[in-house]
């Protein structure tokens, strides 16, 4: 049963180290931008090599933007 004290003890020590790391990172401005990420994920990658046309073969509407 002592194993649980061990695992939880290790967890708490880790957690404290992590907490310091978090405060350090937050001061770096981690949460400053909450607007662009949601837009950026929609931008599709530009395909440079392809031997087929997606527009012809992919189902549905507005295909270029959702490959």
């Amino acid at each position, binding site marked *: *049963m002592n*194993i*649980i*004290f061990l*695992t*939880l003890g290790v*967890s*708490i020590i*880790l*957690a404290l180290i*992590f*907490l310091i*790391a*978090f405060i350090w*990172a*937050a001061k*770096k*401005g*981690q*949460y*400053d*931008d*909450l*607007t*662009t*990420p*949601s*837009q*950026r*994920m*929609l931008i599709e*990658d*530009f*395909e*440079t*090599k*392809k*031997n*087929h046309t*997606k527009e012809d*073969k*992919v*189902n*549905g*509407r*507005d295909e270029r*933007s*959702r*490959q």
Partner: protein
Amino acid sequence: MAEMKEVGSKLMDRIVYDDDIVKKFVIATILWGAAAFLVGLLVALELAYWKANLNLPWLTFGRIRPLHTNAAIFAFGGNIIFAGVYHSTQRLLKTRLYSDTLSRIHFWGWQLIIVGALITLPLGYSQSKEYAELEWPIDVAIALVWVIFAVNFFGTIAIRRVKHLYVAIWFYIATIITIAALHIINSIEIPVSLLKSYPVYAGVQDALVQWWYGHNAVAFFLTTPFLGLMYYYVPKAANRPVYSYKLSVIHFWSLVFLYIWAGPHHLLNSALPDWAQTLGMIFSLMLWAPSWGGMINGLLTLRGAWHLLRTEPIIKFLAVAVTFYGMSTFEGPLLSIKSVNSLAHYSDWIIAHVHGGTLGWNGFLSFGIIYYLVPRLWNNKMYSHKLMNTHFWVGLLGILIYYISMWAAGITEGLMWRAVDANGRLVYPDWVEIVMRVVPLYYVRFIGGALYLTGFLLLIYNVWMTIKTAPKEETVAAVEVPLRAEDAAVGTGHRKLEALGAIFAILLFISIAVGSVIEILPTLSIYKYLPATYKTRPYTPLELAGRDVYIREGCYVCHSQMIRKLPFDVLRFGAASTIEESMYDRPFQWGSKRIGPDLARVGGKYPDMWHYRHMMNPRDITPNSIMPSYPWLANNTIDYLSLRKKLSVMKRLGVPYDDDTLANGDIYAEKDAEKIYESLLSQDPSLTEIKDKEIIALIAYLQSMGKRTISGNGQEVSKSNR
């Protein structure tokens, strides 16, 4: 795979994503999904018509319900999570996965684990802890494969080309870290043999650790990864940014902080200390806010795009999935209220609740993602748009029939169990009368499940035809992505807003560690505070052998061993269960569902012969019983050989067996078995064949239930009110 090219400017790479691994996981999702739903249909049929198990041990409800839940959660759910995570992460982080080799080890390792489950669970190798039934070698394999997944995922984060981590990635991180912690802590067990082990936790401790795990398996295997997938695929499919990015951040942190505390709501009104129950209930109620915040965020992502619901099957699947997420997360906290729980616990209402979540939220989200991925992965449009629509409607109808029938069954059971007349007597004292009332609903549920599977078969056909007619030529396309930050000499402004994966890992760790410590730690010393006047004796060697038969056959799937502190429970089954009664129970057998009656005080209630005849054919004793017959228990010989080893493991875990018992446990077991055998033989001289058979050990165990608590003067304390 990256080849640096001068494309327009020198700051671009040209890479190829690893979509082959995504394809593999998609195919595996479809195959195991079919298996999980098919087994689900069989277990549903067995409740309506028990003979559907064909009288085969490995097809009985107790053994294959765990197969169904494990297949649905870890085989179907697991594979779609891995497919979606690997597909979306590469695109969000603009990099190929960290290691092709690790990806493949992850894939084949996971499939092997599933095959292992498929073989061992029907054979009865089970730890009897829900969604953690798999025996220790498979537990070890799960931990290893999960670590490989983690290394591959965090490695991918390390080599990413986009510094900011999109919200979906955080949900994936939460999943990986928390599942690792949950799985490992709940699986600490000591092996007895290659496929048998005992957990280090006993009784209430085991119950608490198990439901801390069990509830968070729902939270961090069926919720957070799917929310990550939602935050990627819903915006992608609708081509609209998520409604509020800020809300998604709040959703994430509040959810991971609150979820870890909710486990005790599975043990309401039980022998778990009241403060722990109340804590679980309060945190469950608080979950309403983040869950609905996320649901609203998902649905409102479709703002201005609602017309897509008319034409796009993918959007239909995703929108309905998010709606079911909202419904399930409304119902969950509601069921966590102690008074509501007293009606719903152990009943089919819980079955309705989980299937609303799994069929509606997990299933429909997965189908939407499969329909999104298949055309893109195989460069071919879906074979049939119409079949996708048909799948949607057939599946939705299936869910509704399932959900409504089980609601009705659950509330019927709950109300009949608690009905007391003016004289304070149970209105329905006869258990089987209540069962008979819900059996028609079990048939209705079967129809619902069959419709859901039918819809899925349409998906299989549609996907099969899509792949078959796909162009055979090279279909991988190279994409242009930005150079890695360290390669590109830009390090100011926006780039400085670095989202380090580790940070989220850390915060998450703190959240779960704090919740876990506060809830688990105090219960570790709980037996110190037991009244000294009562003492529970350990199981005799024969009872222990019988208990392992009980575990193997999955009796806990239908029978609880926890009489709640509720008047109608006490009236029906006897005095409420106490913590000390299960202090030597490894694993605990409190159960979560009462298809049959509670067994905590069944000891001494009926003669041995009653149990023998009941196990051979329950209908001989109780007409209309839906319990399977267990004739093989009269053929299998008791495993005396392993008893000494079992006892020594128990002793190592702190059970006070004396040296004599440890050295001669098998001999004592044989002597005890002889007595039960003689008494049965004296009543029925034809029973010469059952000497040393498992049925004897099981009877010994059943007769000990509620009978092992000894008062200070050594007298057995009878807690039965009959």
